């Protein structure tokens, strides 16, 4: 017997550096559960901001929505073929998203100036149960083109709209531990007048508070009243510039935090950080949020809005109306982008699997549809709901975009 047939021509030690391409396992590390777990990790950023700004009620609100969804999924999982397709991780992720769209005061029995005397907290688990039902109806993630979270949110708007308007934020001296519903509501303004607004930034409040929380009217309400032409000026006229200068809360409150908002949308920075985390982990196509924001900004300056309200409404396009000026236009666009859920939709909802198109070009068109649609709906319908509605509408175009923008094979 000889050794002609097999000779080692390289020792292991020599081979090791060249073996940089160590054989890969046949499947990557990211399975479905991990896929949604990473999404959940991204939600930690806005949720943490929510806990800081709205206190412990944020945690209760999230827990109630998640518990409702988990209970619903446990039931619906047993029903039919659709039930077997339901995934726990994706369901919990959806529940987190839904919780982030709701105001924290819902995690209470009542709150100052509540339009109803009934207990509010059951709305949260009920929303979770409804979400589970909708996920079942859409046969799990990936089957339907409609994102269940905005559908549930908009249904809640139909049934409970006055309850969904956020009014509270904790005082900087009462962060995390404060009760977000412990605030003194202001006196109701005279007809035609706007409620007084705090002009100093939330971060610059140093005096010790009388209560845990501050009451305020969300910027979205002021914007939509003005842009839909429903604003009645208290004096002879109200221009866009005056609206922004005198009646809007500081923009800084929306960027850093400190404005009344749904519990996951309070800080634009936290939402963007969550999105950047998803981007870093390869779960987010950067084109989607970027194009949504760009398309929304462009649409906002192109569509006609009231630039002044006198005895009649003066509609102008910001891009063409020299009288307004670009500083006012840019400030207005910034308010529109940050007063509603547009950034949240751009970073957390629009890139959801199943809803977005598969190809890059399709995604670009889809993102622009959302951006433009959200801008139009924010201007003429509602700042708080426009982006959700735009997402649902754009999702309906996804199958069409997948057909039109097919993948082009290399060869």
């Amino acid at each position, binding site marked *: 017997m*000889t050794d002609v047939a097999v000779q080692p*021509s390289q020792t292991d030690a020599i081979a090791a550096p060249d*073996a940089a391409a*160590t054989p890969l396992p*046949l499947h990557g590390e990211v399975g479905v559960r991990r896929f949604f777990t990473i999404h959940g990790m991204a939600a930690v950023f806005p949720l943490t901001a929510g806990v800081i700004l709205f206190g412990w009620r944020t945690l209760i609100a999230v827990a109630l929505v998640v518990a409702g969804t988990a209970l619903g999924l446990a039931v619906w999982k047993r029903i039919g073929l659709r039930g077997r397709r339901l995934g726990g991780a994706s369901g919990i992720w959806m529940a987190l998203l839904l919780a982030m769209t709701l105001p924290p005061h819902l995690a209470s029995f009542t709150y100052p100036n509540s339009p109803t005397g009934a207990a509010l907290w059951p709305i949260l688990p009920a929303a979770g149960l409804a979400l589970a039902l909708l996920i079942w109806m859409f046969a799990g993630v990936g089957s339907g083109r409609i994102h269940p979270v905005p559908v549930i949110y908009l249904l809640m708007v139909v049934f409970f709209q006055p309850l969904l308007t956020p009014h509270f934020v904790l005082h900087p001296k009462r962060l995390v531990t404060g009760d977000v519903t412990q605030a003194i509501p202001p006196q109701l303004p005279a007809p035609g007048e706007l409620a007084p607004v705090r002009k100093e930034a939330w971060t610059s409040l140093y005096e010790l508070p009388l209560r845990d929380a501050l009451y305020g009217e969300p910027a979205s309400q002021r914007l939509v009243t003005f842009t839909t032409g429903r604003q009645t000026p208290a004096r002879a006229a109200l221009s866009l510039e005056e609206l922004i200068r005198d009646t809007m809360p500081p923009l800084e409150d929306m960027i850093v935090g400190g404005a009344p908002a749904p519990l996951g949308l309070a800080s634009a920075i936290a939402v963007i950080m969550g999105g950047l985390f998803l981007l870093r982990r390869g779960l987010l196509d950067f084109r989607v949020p970027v194009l949504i924001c760009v398309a929304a900004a462009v649409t906002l300056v192109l569509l006609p809005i009231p630039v002044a309200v006198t005895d009649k409404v003066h509609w102008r396009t910001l891009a063409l109306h020299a009288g307004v000026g670009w500083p006012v236009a840019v400030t207005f666009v910034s308010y529109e982008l940050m007063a509603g859920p547009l950034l949240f939709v751009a970073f957390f909802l629009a890139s959801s699997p199943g809803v977005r198109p598969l*190809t890059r070009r399709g995604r670009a068109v889809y993102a622009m549809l959302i951006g433009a649609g959200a801008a139009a709906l924010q201007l003429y319908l509602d700042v708080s709901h426009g982006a959700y509605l735009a997402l649902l509408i754009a999702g309906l175009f996804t199958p069409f975009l997948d057909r039109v923008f097919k993948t082009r*094979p290399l060869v």
Partner: protein
Amino acid sequence: MTATDALPLPLPSKLFVPLPPGGAELVLAPGSHVTPGQPLMTSTAGAAHVPLAPVRGIVGHVVQVQLLGGPAGASAAVEIEVEAGPHAPEPRTAENIALPTDLPTLIDRLRSCGVRANRTCSPDLLAQLHDAVRRPIDTVLCSLMDAAGGAALSAVVLRTMGKELLAGIEALGRATGANRLWLVADSNIINRAAALVRKSGNSSRIKVVELENDYPQADPTLMLYALLGRRLRPGRLPPEVNAVVLDGAAAGALGRAVTRGEPMLEVPVEVRDSGQSRSTVYTAAIGLPLRFLLEAAGLRTNDLTLRAGAALRDMRVSCDAVIDGGGELSIDAGPPSPPINPDPCIRCGWCVEACPVRIHPAGLLEAAQDDDPEMAQRYGLHACIECGICSYVCPSRLPLLPAIRELRKRISLHD
């Protein structure tokens, strides 16, 4: 330990020399004695090579064996003569070897020396040359990029038969009339390749080209597109786009055949041990059962999942497969794969984003489930290089690659 060291390995009593398809009969009757390099068949059909005895031994019967990275085929058993020892054939001297200057002569030389290659990163060499007779060739690409990424195997090839490799490329260039002779290497061995070309003299027309070997970049379709911008459909031969593509092992064997008339009796084979993240390259005789190679590498064959070529291609072989010489030159030995229970597709689109040839693997899975050939063509079945990246990235663990293979099989049966 050096490249020429030998290990006291338990050798098989028999080697199984793969015979070219076509049903030709052995020229030697069972029981005949053969010497290394002696032809086992006189003539073979078409572009096939002449099978040669790899060692001194006794010819046995023709049996069916699985080839490494290929289907089962006829092989001639050669019983090794124990006393014989390593016995390479006497190389012919330079005086009686004429360098082939045209393609027919080169093809004849390669066939008679048993030189061939038909693997993922080195398309059928003899068929390419036959094709090149009818088509103009302007480029010869010799790839030093391993099928699985990196360059462990190619580094050994470069070190042990670098001169022959260069001679092989030059010979191909002369015979085909190609004016571009490119040696393609990744950053791991680019310096060594460049040094070798420099040493070979100023007259060398070979240019060393760097290309990142990011799997599956070594695939000819991707390499030709990346370097020349030419679009070669998978399964087609590179002469269709006026190029000849071969890997380092094939070029080295070709160089030995044209310069010394040396037959291809052994090939370098890389064994990658996934469990230990270790890679070792051996020189193995053609016809050697894989089991003996794995035992030489210290691997327990009954606990392993074996895959020929890049692991992601998932071309499973048994340890009874034999080393073909022309087929894959790397084996991935990994732990047994547990059964996978796929989740439903979540339409994440990762398969589409990751696909190097920009097709729609999830759509192909749908086409396979619906048995819809038209949908399959729409989603780019023709362009799939079966690299397995889609199956790798899929978070739902969907059987995308098996579905694509099944679809191709069904369509080819239908045609």
